[in-house]
Each structure stands twice: as structure tokens, then as C-alpha cells.
């Protein structure tokens, strides 16, 4: 079952930096769909469409539909705040908010109006366990989040999204600044999380794309070149451009 259906999506920024050209793509539920390709191909743009973070940028042209559970999220009448709670985002650089670990985790709930402390405590524990961080921080939840290591910060960012119990998790090169051990931990969490969530990952390398992908979409200059199951795409791609890219001939 496709959780997200992108139908003929075309998007241009006013600075022409990146674009999307007539993208149609179904993103299945409870799986990791990897969006990969060279820089400037439209990967991040697509992610930012999925939780309407693009509203903050200067989009000059957009047309097409993006359905999540058959609801068009590009509809201007849609409540973006609710959408962003349903579709969480983890960024390339671990950006912890300048507050304690606990406050980072409850931030999303608090702005949503949650006041029940026991609910928040439960969310903290659950999300930290899911992000494989609980054992490392359970005794120092009130420490400033900035005191954590880079790898821990990124897992905190993941936990912060999970605390909101979203349906979809978007990850934009979440391990690009991390050491291999931390990267492994994040990737491991994702394999576990896909059982509950729909995951869209922009990986930081073809290798990571191959490791993580249940499904993979190759983007080149705003165009969706190929979409297939990961096993198929990384061993026997259909398009010559995909083949050249995964073989490391360009990009």
C-alpha cells in the first residue's frame, strides 16, 4: 500500500537552484524508500515538499498533487501544522534546540498544547528507546542537549521527531556528519522503525542507499530516472544513467 502518492509534481524555485520535473512516485508504507542521486537533483526539495517546509522558501512555480493517505497535502486549505506533526523531518546537521535533552523531546508536544506530564514522560522514554539513545541519556535528561556528542545529537533529533508519533519520517542525509559507529546505530534504528513508520531517506552515499533501501528512487537534475525495489535497482538497474551512477561513473 502506498502511503504517499506523488502525482505529476513540478516545482521551480525562484533562484532556479533545484527543481522537480513532473515527478510521479508511490512511496510504500512500512518500508524505507531511498531518494538518491547527485547534488542538485531535487532530493531535498522533494523531502521538503512532503512536510511543506518549502513554504519557508521561495517557490516560484508548483503544480501536481501529493497525496498522503489520499489527502492532497498541497491543498492551501490544509492545516500545515498538523501535517508537520504527521510527517517528521530529520536534517543533515544535527540541530538540537538550545535547551535540555528533555525539553528538546517535549518541544513538539508542548507547542501542540500537550500538558499532561506523564504522557510526555512516556513519550520521552519511548522515543529515546526507539532512537537507541535511552541507555546513554536516561540519567541526564536535564543536561543541555548541546553537551551530547554529534552522533547522540542526531539520534536525539530522530527521537524528537518520534516523540510526536508521526506517520512518516523524512531524513535528509541524517548521517552525513557522523562517524561509522553512530551511522550504524542510526541505520539500525531505521530498520527497526520501518515496521511502524513510513520512512523516506536521502542517503549520504550510494553505499548507504544500497544498505538501507527497500525501495530506491534515482533523481537526476530534477527528474525521476528510475524507481524500483532496492535489490533490483542496485544489482540490475534498467536505465543507463542509474547504472553509471551506482557504478560510480559520475556524481
Amino acid at each position: 500500500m502506498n502511503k504517499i502518492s506523488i502525482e505529476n509534481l513540478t516545482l521551480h524555485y525562484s533562484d532556479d537552484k533545484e527543481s522537480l520535473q513532473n515527478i510521479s512516485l508511490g512511496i510504500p508504507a512500512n518500508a524505507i524508500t531511498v531518494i538518491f542521486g547527485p547534488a542538485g537533483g531535487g532530493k531535498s526539495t522533494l523531502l521538503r515538499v512532503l512536510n511543506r517546509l518549502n513554504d519557508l522558501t521561495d517557490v516560484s512555480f508548483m503544480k501536481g498533487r501529493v497525496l498522503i493517505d489520499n489527502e492532497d497535502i498541497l491543498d492551501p486549505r490544509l492545516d500545515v501544522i498538523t501535517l508537520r506533526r504527521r510527517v517528521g523531518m530529520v536534517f543533515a546537521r544535527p540541530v538540537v534546540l538550545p535547551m535540555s535533552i528533555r525539553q528538546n523531546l517535549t518541544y513538539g508536544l508542548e507547542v501542540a498544547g500537550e500538558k499532561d506530564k506523564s504522557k510526555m514522560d512516556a513519550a520521552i522514554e519511548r522515543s529515546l528507546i526507539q532512537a537507541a539513545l535511552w541507555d546513554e541519556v536516561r540519567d541526564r535528561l536535564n543536561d543541555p542537549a548541546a553537551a551530547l556528542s554529534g552522533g547522540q545529537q542526531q539520534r536525539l533529533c530522530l527521537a524528537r521527531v518520534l516523540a510526536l508519533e508521526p506517520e512518516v519520517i523524512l531524513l535528509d542525509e541524517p548521517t552525513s556528519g557522523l562517524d561509522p559507529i553512530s551511522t550504524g546505530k542510526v541505520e539500525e534504528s531505521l530498520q527497526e522503525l520501518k515496521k511502524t513508520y513510513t520512512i523516506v531517506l536521502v542517503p549520504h552515499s550510494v553505499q548507504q542507499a544500497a544498505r538501507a533501501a527497500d525501495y530506491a528512487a534515482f533523481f537526476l537534475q530534477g527528474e525521476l530516472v528510475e524507481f524500483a525495489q532496492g535489490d533490483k535497482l542496485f544489482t540490475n538497474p534498467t536505465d543507463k544513467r542509474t547504472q553509471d551512477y551506482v557504478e560510480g561513473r559520475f556524481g
Partner: protein
Amino acid sequence: MTVTSTSQTRHTTQRLGFSLLTLMTLLTVVPIAVVVIYILFLGAPAISWEFVTGFPREGMRAGGIWPAIVGTLYLTLGTATFAVPLGIGAAIYLSEYAAENRWTRLIRIAIINLAGIPSVVYGLFGLGLFVLFMNFGTSILAGSLTLSIMTLPVIISTTEEALRAVPQAFRTVSISLGATQWQTIRRIVLPQALPGMLTGIILGLERAAGETAPILFTVAAFFLPRLPNSPLDATMALPYHLFVISTQVPGMPIKIQYGTALVLMVFVLSMNFIATTIRSRARARRQW
């Protein structure tokens, strides 16, 4: 050979450059130190409990400067009342809400230019608008409003700068977690920018406290040996008082002039000190 000689030349040039820069630094520091020491030296003998808390007597040639101190305090507070909310509001609008276009660029240029206008012009403007047209008379209200207009550009630009210094990523993350823009500003941006904003605000108010020209026409009383009763009352103020006793009253004892200058200087410098303390404390605590 050539290598050695070039490296020697470079050493010499470097030493020369350093010496020059040291000299220039001294040239700026020394006069300031001299001024401070000079005022301290000449003013200190005047300082006494009576001088600070007493009312002027004998045509201001004796007694204290209490009404002027209180006047300046009132004016500073009055200015803060108007300029701080307005300035912060404008800065938040410019930094967080306004789109980057010709209109906002125009506003910014206007603000920068406002900061460059001579203070006496503000005084004249205040006289025309607040004292006469709005009929507030020469009063603390008119003076505070005039000083507010003069201070606003400083407060707006420093506050805006403080807001912009908060990393954009914090805003994006907050929005991505489902916060509204206002929630983001209130919970993330303002707390982070607050120390920088306070510094800017205090520096702006400090300028207001020390100015003479804008209050000349709008509030200051030449001689009013009592405390003001209401915002519509005129009042004495330290800078204007200093101007008066230095130039308008013959036979003024030097020590009273310098004593007044010393009090004004301490007033302004302590505001400065508070601002610096806030800033360095915040820097040490900052997590980004």
C-alpha cells in the same frame, strides 16, 4: 640568499605594522583615560551625600543635583516605556515576518539614516510635534517621546541583529516540529536573542540619558528645585543641568560642574557595564 633576504624584509614589515597598530590603539585609549581621570579628579571633591540627594541652592552654585538625577531617571524610564516595545516589535517584524523586498530595504535604509540625524533636529521635531502640536507642553512625556524617536533606530537595528544572529536552523527545526511561527519566535528565537537585545536596548537608552539637545526644547527646566509630580511636568535633567551650570551661570564653582559631570558619567558607564555583563554572561552560556 634571496629567500633569507625576503624573509627578513617580511619580518621587518611585520614588526613595523605591529608597532603602528599598537601606537594607534594607544592614541585612542589615552585620551579616553585622560578624560575619565580628569573628571574623576576634579569632580570627586564635590561628591557628598548632600550633593547627590540635595536640592540646588544659591542659583545652583551650591546644594545638590537630586532633581536632575531623578529627572534623568524618569526620562530614561519614559523613553524605555515607548521605545522598547516599539523597537522590539519593529525588529521582530523586519527580521522574522517581512519578506525581503524593496519595501523592507527602504525601511532599513530609513532606520539607518534616522540614526545619523543630529540630535538637535530631533529636539526641534519634538518641540513641533509633541510640545506644540499635541500640546503636551514641555514635559517628561514630550521629552520621553522625543528621546524614544531618537533611540528607536539604535534599538531596532541592534535587536534585529540579535534576532538574525539566532541560527536559521533553529527556526526550521521548530517549524518542522509543528510549531507556528509565533511559537517559534516566542520559545526559541526571543530567548536566544534576549541578551543581545538587552545590550542594544541599554546602549540605546544610555544614549538617551546622556543627550542634551533633544530635551533642550521639550522637557528640561533651567531651574526647578523640586521633583516632578506627573508625566506632564517639566523636570531638570543631568545633561542639560551640566550645560546650564557650565555655560549659563556666571561664577559657578568648578567642582560643582565636574561633580555633575562625574555623576552623569557614572550613570552612563554603569548602564554600559550592565550591558557588557549581560552580553558576556550570555556568550558563556550560549550553546551554539
